[in-house]
């Protein structure tokens, strides 16, 4: 589904990604871990289409199409969803209006009929229950006055509404207490199926107790330096990242 080959990217003069290789197939959960500054969020940003980052080499294909050529809205319409680490507040734009516009623009792109107000509300209610988010949050302006946990739950709610093929969760667990974490993870797990995939970018192993990965990759200085199963995450948790850094330097 997602095929990244030798991806390199920089921001301004600073080279951050130095050749990422990653294959994600439908039904899989990949975790990307690494110390601060390793390029985890950059990878997520580049895949989502942030303009500040310049791709200097390599490719990223999604369902056989060149992802890097597409505008951010088209990547979303093709089925890529980025759950932000710091979801922005947009006062004056109601969550419901925003969601309806997004859903219908994606449906239009896919040749489907737009949802009318009644159908849309029906879908919304269904998904709200699924990810345990309260109606009161949705009546307000997008993320305005939301706590950290509420913002992250709103990200997962959007994911439920948009039904992406590939979800990239950018440090979704940062700033969450254990209860909020469980709710978020629960939501993600309920949305998983054989045809979609999830890439979890995280600094801490804790989330991976709940969203269990098939593959764990360690990112260090813009490269994936080690891959393994979920046990690798446990090893990192126990030993920290210095162990990996030493291994890499020796190599």
């Amino acid at each position: 589904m997602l095929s990244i080959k030798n991806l390199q990217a920089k921001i301004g003069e600073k080279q951050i990604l130095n050749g990422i290789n990653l294959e994600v197939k439908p039904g899989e959960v990949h975790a990307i871990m690494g110390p601060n500054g390793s390029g985890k969020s950059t990878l997520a940003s580049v895949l989502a289409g942030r303009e500040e980052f310049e791709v200097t080499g390599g490719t990223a294909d999604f369902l056989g199409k060149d992802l890097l050529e597409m505008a951010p809205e088209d990547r979303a319409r093709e089925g890529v969803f980025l759950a932000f680490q710091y979801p922005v507040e947009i006062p004056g734009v109601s969550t419901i209006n925003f969601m309806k516009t997004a859903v219908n623009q994606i449906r239009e792109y896919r040749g489907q009929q737009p949802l009318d107000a009644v159908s849309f509300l029906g879908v919304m209610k269904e998904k709200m229950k699924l990810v345990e988010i309260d109606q009161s949050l949705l009546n307000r302006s997008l993320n305005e006055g939301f706590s950290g946990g509420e913002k992250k739950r709103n990200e997962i709610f959007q994911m439920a509404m948009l039904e992406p093929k590939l979800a990239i969760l950018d440090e979704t667990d940062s700033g969450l207490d254990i209860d909020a974490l469980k709710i978020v993870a629960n939501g993600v797990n309920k949305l998983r199926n054989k045809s979609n995939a999830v890439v979890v970018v995280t600094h801490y192993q804790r989330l991976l107790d709940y969203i269990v990965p098939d593959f764990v990759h360690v990112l260090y200085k813009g490269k994936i330096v080690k891959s393994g199963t979920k046990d690798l995450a446990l090893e990192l948790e126990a030993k920290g990242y210095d162990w990996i850094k030493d291994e890499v330097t020796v190599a």
Partner: protein
Amino acid sequence: MSAVATEKNITADLASVIEKNIASLPSQMQKRKEALDAFKKIGLPLNKSEEYKFTPVTRFLERNFDLSVSTQPGKLNPAPYFIDGLDASVLVFINGVYSPAHSAIKSPGITVSTLQDALLNNNSTALKYFGTLADVNADAFTAWNTASWSDGVFVHIPKNVVAEKPILLYHIHDAQAQVISHSRNLILVEKSSEVTILEKFDSAGSANHFSTVVTEAVVEENAGLNFYSIQNDSGARHQVGLIQVQQANHSRVNTFTFSLDGKLIRNNLHLTLDGEGIESHMYGLYLLGKDTLADNHTVADHRKPNSFSNELYKGIMDESSRGVFNGKIYVRPDAQKTNAFQANRNILLTDKATVNTKPQLEIWADDVKCSHGCTSGQLDEEALFYLQTRGISKETAQAMMLYAFAGEVLESVKDPVIKAYLDQVISERLHKNF
């Protein structure tokens, strides 16, 4: 001819035109002559004028108008410019002249008439208050208006009356040929009474047209005034307006200024909070495109303790348009416990659009709460990106954010019909397709 000589000449030229026309104008001859003297003394604002620094009205007058040409009476059908669905008194002025055929005054229990009628019939209230608030020595356009006004509305709400129906003033220019008009309004809202007044400016035709509009309003104890000004004239409208309001204890004034189109608009809004327990709000929204210049100069003058004023003006400048804002807050020595707030937020959509914004707080009391905030910038890129990552096109994302930005001012409009009308105009302008 040197530049200075030309500028001196325009004041002198205009003064002689005013003088020539004065004899044919109705009523208040003494005040007209005094105003003309004041006009000659002050002169039209020149390049160095602080108050008109970014708004070269005089230069536009020089270039776009022949001041020696008189304005013809106009003839047009005003219906396309009306706001539908309002059960209201309607007064239509075409080229500054009252058009009874198109007007309909519904005023049970209150007095609504043209100002000409009121003064010619020696209405004591009109005679008492006319010309007492707008200072001809403060601004040349006020002086010009006081010397040259043709007509306008006189509204008198007696004690304890809530005027149910709003009063709509449609000022329309028949601009097949150049038009210069001067409108004058006088409003008295007595103790514990309320009224809503809306003025709307439009035109037909492509010639340049200029108007001065001066409104004096006295709002007595515990009374309320809602005043809307809708400036969406797609023709070559040049306008300088003054709304001068005097407020007594516990009164409430809400003004709503929507500047959506025109060539050059200058709005002067002056609230004198001369009492305690007053609550006043000044709202403004300017959505500008082409090469429109819209300038809002406001004053909140707190003279007594314990009063509250809040000002929110927001602007979106597109293409080569120019926005100007200057918000003065005066807190006099006796005005302790004043709460005065001001916010001016601007978004520039292109490299050519500009905005000049200046808060100006002059505070002489020492136990007050005042704040101001003027910002200008582009749309939040992070927010636009966020919307795009949800599949929303950049154009729609931009429209959503601009509509949300303007929405804060629209939210403040109380009347549902007026709000719906403005929502429709604003949505179209911002290409709202969601």
